[in-house]
């Protein structure tokens, strides 16, 4: 299915599968309160691929973790994370008991986090990882393993070889695909992936991206794909959300966000990203550096680095402005931004 089709479909089917409101995550530190997610609202639409882009330290991994109420202690998660079933039944994710959460995390919303290498137990073969997961969730083992083999095959791996292998016997790319298969074995609705291709070679990254797209279609998944590598997901994502300094600063259809960026940070990020098309003279680094979570500038958190900043930006934190009906930017000067070179 082409992107335009899927976009139209997601417009027709406006059903939200996850709703996030006023989400904040903070850590109390001796230096002060470190607010690593600072008031995020987000609607994840059923069967979309949402790309969340941000630099290291922008809070994107914390956003990913909070979708599963998986922020590590002593982090505190506040706000609303709601999972909505197709019939409209709602689940308050942050209010789930420990036992409920355990089921929810694999069977409803599953995750592939950074560093597949450490996600597997090195002294256990891959088959046991699958079996233990199925048993822990009281699934039929034979049926479950059949499903596992099918998913593994979908990911261009030989099931018998992979299942019999120990983690160290697989290459990085194979391990990462085995982990994706494991995350899907309990047939979740939503898959949250945090840098699932980091540390892999280009060819493997690209192959995994292609496979994720195929798998998403086959298993009717909704995917949140989190990365610092913008071009990696522009072709995959239906919508993009750009994160800067612990907040979302722009979101919209991928093509819109890339071609008509309405936040100066998104523009700067695009210009600073090495790629094969942009003329070399046009590539330049983002000026300045990202703020410390303990000491975020008042007003718009980007104003100190922004070429368009005026006095309003120093005092007033911008709410989202509508650029089009499905594209919004948290920038007082979004109209000027659209005119930027």
């Amino acid at each position, binding site marked *: 299915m082409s992107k335009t089709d899927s976009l139209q479909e997601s417009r027709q089917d406006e059903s939200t599968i996850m709703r996030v409101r006023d989400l904040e995550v903070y850590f109390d530190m001796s230096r002060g309160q470190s607010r690593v997610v600072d008031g995020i609202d987000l609607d994840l639409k059923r069967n979309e691929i949402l790309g969340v882009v941000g630099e290291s330290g922008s809070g994107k991994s914390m956003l990913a973790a909070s979708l599963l109420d998986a922020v590590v202690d002593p982090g505190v998660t506040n706000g609303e994370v709601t999972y909505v079933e197709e019939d409209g039944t709602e689940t308050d994710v942050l209010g789930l008991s420990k036992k409920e959460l355990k089921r929810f995390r694999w069977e409803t919303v599953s995750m592939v986090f950074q560093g597949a290498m450490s996600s597997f137990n090195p002294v256990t073969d891959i088959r046991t990882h699958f079996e233990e997961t199925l048993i822990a969730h009281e699934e039929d083992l034979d049926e479950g393993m059949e499903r596992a083999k099918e998913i593994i095959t979908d990911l261009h791996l030989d099931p018998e070889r992979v299942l019999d292998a120990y983690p160290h016997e697989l290459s990085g790319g*194979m391990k990462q695909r085995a982990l994706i298969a494991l995350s899907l074995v309990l047939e979740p609705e939503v898959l949250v992936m945090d840098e699932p291709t980091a540390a892999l070679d280009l*060819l493997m990254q690209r192959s995994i991206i292609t496979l994720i797209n195929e798998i998403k279609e086959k298993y009717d998944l909704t995917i949140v794909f989190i990365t*610092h590598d913008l071009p990696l997901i522009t072709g995959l994502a239906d919508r993009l959300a750009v994160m800067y300094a612990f907040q979302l600063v722009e979101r919209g259809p991928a093509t819109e966000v890339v071609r008509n960026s309405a936040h100066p940070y998104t523009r700067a990020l695009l210009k600073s990203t090495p*790629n094969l098309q942009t003329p070399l003279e046009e590539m330049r680094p983002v000026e300045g*550096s990202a703020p410390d979570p303990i000491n975020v500038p008042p007003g718009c958190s980007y104003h100190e680095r922004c070429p368009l900043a005026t006095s309003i930006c120093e005092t007033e934190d911008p709410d989202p402005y509508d650029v089009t009906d499905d594209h919004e930017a948290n920038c007082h000067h979004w109209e000027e931004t659209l005119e930027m070179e």
Partner: protein
Amino acid sequence: MSPTTTKPTATTGKRPWRWSETDMSQQQTGTSQQDGPSANEQEPLLSVNDLKVHFEKESQSIFGETETIKAVDGISFDLTERDVLVLVGESGCGKTTLGKTAVGLQRPTEGTVTYRGQDVWTAKDRLGDIDIPFREIRQSLQIIHQDPGSSLNSHKRVRSILEEPLIQGSEDLDWNQRRARILGMLEHVGMAPAEDYIDRYPHQLSGGEQQRIALVRAFLMNPDVILGDEAISALDVSLRIEMMDLMMDLQEMFDTAFLFISHNLSNARYIAGKTGGRIGVMYLGELVEIGTVDKIINDPEHPYTRALKWATPELDPEDAEEKDEMPIRSIDIPDPEDPPSGCPYHTRCPEAKEVCATEEPSLLETDVDEHRHQVACFRSQDDHAYWDSDPIE
């Protein structure tokens, strides 16, 4: 000739740290090279000839057999003064081993590495007539690691980290001169006010600042060649341009040749494009295509180079959508312990024919781009038996 006086300072006021290469080569090579700068242009600075690096790996079997991994298997290239070559390829293709061998950190199994005509390992082993002592070669070939910051000694202040190369170097600088030069370099790489940085310890610097210090230290050794091994791939995408700009700025300032290793074609394009350098594509220990950015990025010939280009993400979503199907038959790289027969790429190549499984193409010069392009694929030879061969499977 004392090796400690081989690098006199040129008197270019603006760039007090720039040494004249011409003076240097005349002093160094003495009798072997009389005509100075013009001949110097032609003679390779660093030359790698039919290089092979094989590792023995103990097998798990009770018979204690060993298996040979051919990390580098017959690679040749030259670097001239200020030349830039970026080696790209997947993990395990041997690019790091090739880089390390080229700068004299790894002994080749076969083949030679020569620096200004001096065989590096002959010098190291002190065999026969040695024109350039190994100590000097070592200093001329420097390496910047994958995570440059972590290579800094955490117990030393910035000042003493950067003083080391100056003390070891050729010039007789006193304390004040060294301090002035360090301050100048810090300012130059954007660490201002430099007085604030000079007495800090590495842990008091940001990751980017640590990298700058590691870069400055490598360049202050005044090397002729710097090997940058994935020196920026650990960085966020948005910080890479800045770091590459800094490296190229220092490269120009110090007149250094650059051997850069990356798995990322976008970074390779940026560096080779900005410096007029070349990109070399490696696959399973062999160089399969080498050429300028124009050729490698815009019009690649080897099916593997094309696959790498396909794999490189595009910024514009619609361009990305238009990409063809995966141009590889298998996602996973073959086992390097048991490499395919014939062309090493034939097991993944969508264009492979039967002849590719039995015969290995050699790296041949093509007539494009003033012969700066070489490719190892039968498809680049119009009259090859490939064209009449049957498709695989």
